[in-house]
């Protein structure tokens, strides 16, 4: 339909939602975040990337007549009629202080820094509440049996929203523990990406120094010209495309 020919205003269908106890009628296609802004709330915290990856906007909600607790990211979850929601911008979580450089990549490092790991009762509240469908119980289990690799892999999608910690009976901050496991596994145990090493070597060896120096010495207008004239990957191109100019890339 050509929007230029529309002559009537079409009213959006609205649904009632309850934001921290107060009722609002909001358009039904909005996400929780947009609905709260539509209702007049201004986010000064509890809002981040708006793209589902930063974990700032974790929201807890219930539906009318339903005892269950539902969770979702406000920026990703579309409103439902009679949704009762609240946001938990920050849930206090124990974060151990450690020196990554000297930390040994063993499960014992995790046990020393987070002994509360062993308070897990396998209640599964953490998995049930996770908005990213991470199998939290599974990675905690993996850590208890000493498997750093499995814990790192299972917790990969975690965005550190903190909802698991808010529901944990053992009072641990699962996401901090998982982050330690990923740091140890990724940084010290997993095989290193050799092309990364090579690239770092190239950079340190000055492969890009000349080019960066040129850019830094340009005026704003020159920079704009260079930017607009840059070589870009075509929108609809062949599957394989390499830049024509190599600019110091080996």
């Amino acid at each position, binding site marked *: 339909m050509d929007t230029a020919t529309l002559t009537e205003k079409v009213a959006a269908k609205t649904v009632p939602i309850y934001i921290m106890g107060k009722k609002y009628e909001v358009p039904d296609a909005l996400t929780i975040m947009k609905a709260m802004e539509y209702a007049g709330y201004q986010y000064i915290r509890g809002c981040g990337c708006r793209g589902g990856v930063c974990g700032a906007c974790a929201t807890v909600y219930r539906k009318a007549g339903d005892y269950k607790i539902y969770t979702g990211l406000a920026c990703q979850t579309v409103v439902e009629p009679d949704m009762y929601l609240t946001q938990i911008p920050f849930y206090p979580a124990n974060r151990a202080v450690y020196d990554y450089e000297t930390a040994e990549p063993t499960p014992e490092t995790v046990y020393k820094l987070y002994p509360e790991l062993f308070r*897990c*009762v*396998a209640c*599964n509240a953490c998995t049930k509440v996770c908005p990213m469908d991470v199998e939290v119980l599974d990675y905690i*289990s993996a850590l*208890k*049996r*000493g*498997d750093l690799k499995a814990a790192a892999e299972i917790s990969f999608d975690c965005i550190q929203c903190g909802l698991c910690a808010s529901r944990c009976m053992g009072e641990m901050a699962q996401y901090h523990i998982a982050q330690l496991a990923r740091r140890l596994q990724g940084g010290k145990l997993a095989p290193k990406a050799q092309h990364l090493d090579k690239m770092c070597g190239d950079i340190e060896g000055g492969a890009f120094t000349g080019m960066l120096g040129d850019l830094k010495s340009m005026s704003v207008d020159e920079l704009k010209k260079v930017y607009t004239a840059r070589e870009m990957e075509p929108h609809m191109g062949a599957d394989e495309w390499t830049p024509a100019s190599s600019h110091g890339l080996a």
Partner: protein
Amino acid sequence: MKLGYYPGCTLKTKAANLEVAALAALDRLGIETTELDRWNCCGAVFSLADDDLIHQVAPIRNLIRAAQQGCDTVVTICSQCYNTLARANKLVREDDEKRDTLNLFMREEPDYNGEVEVVHYLSLLRDRVGWEKLREAVTNPLTGLKVAPFYGCTLVRPLEVAVDAVDHTILEGFISALGAEPASFSAARECCGAYQMIAHPEEGMKRAAKVIAAANHSGADALILSCPLCEYNLGTRQGDVVAAHSGLDQVPTFYFTQLLGVALGLDPELCRLDLSGPAARTLLTERKYIAAATA
């Protein structure tokens, strides 16, 4: 129907010396078993509060996994895991209300009604193999080795899960089948100190000292165990215990599965003696039950 194997947290790392030879032995004896997929920690202690159901969730969830994976029986080697799983299973089988509440709570899992049987490795050995056949399978009898059988607590109490409920000398029978001599050992069913070694270390060490003293008194060459916590208290910490209490002699500790592995003539590497105290390997090499490790 399958025999599922439930390891428990500790057997994958610190107590690999309880697991590896055990599984290899089952293989040698023709018993097939599969490790459960997606198992979680069982909780180690069975909750004794009548109104407490949350601590039953962990063991029951494992039994659900077993049922999901087509197992009618689950075998465990760690005595504490055995005790917890077996008692939780009994709770579900006998208390309809609690069973229903647990199933309702674990809505994300299929219902569990006690379909799976929980057995300990020792019972499995005795019932599916038998001491006679085990004796026949032994190629490297531990002749001349006097072994103190430490049952501990969780293997034998309470009565409804006790592996020695009917056969009071199950460990002695096992030891004899390996060609060794069971020692008459007064502390066979006494407590090693359990978690008090962590919570109140001095008290824990006093308990361990009593067990070591009894082992010394029995004239045993070695002490066998079935639980990683007993091994920690009586084995790993034995140096501290002996240092703190006069009149004690060191006695090497083994998991019963390590001696099983040696007696069946399995590759000694499978017995993971590297995880046991050095005295363990020394005893076995001195008595020529295994070859001395080449440097």
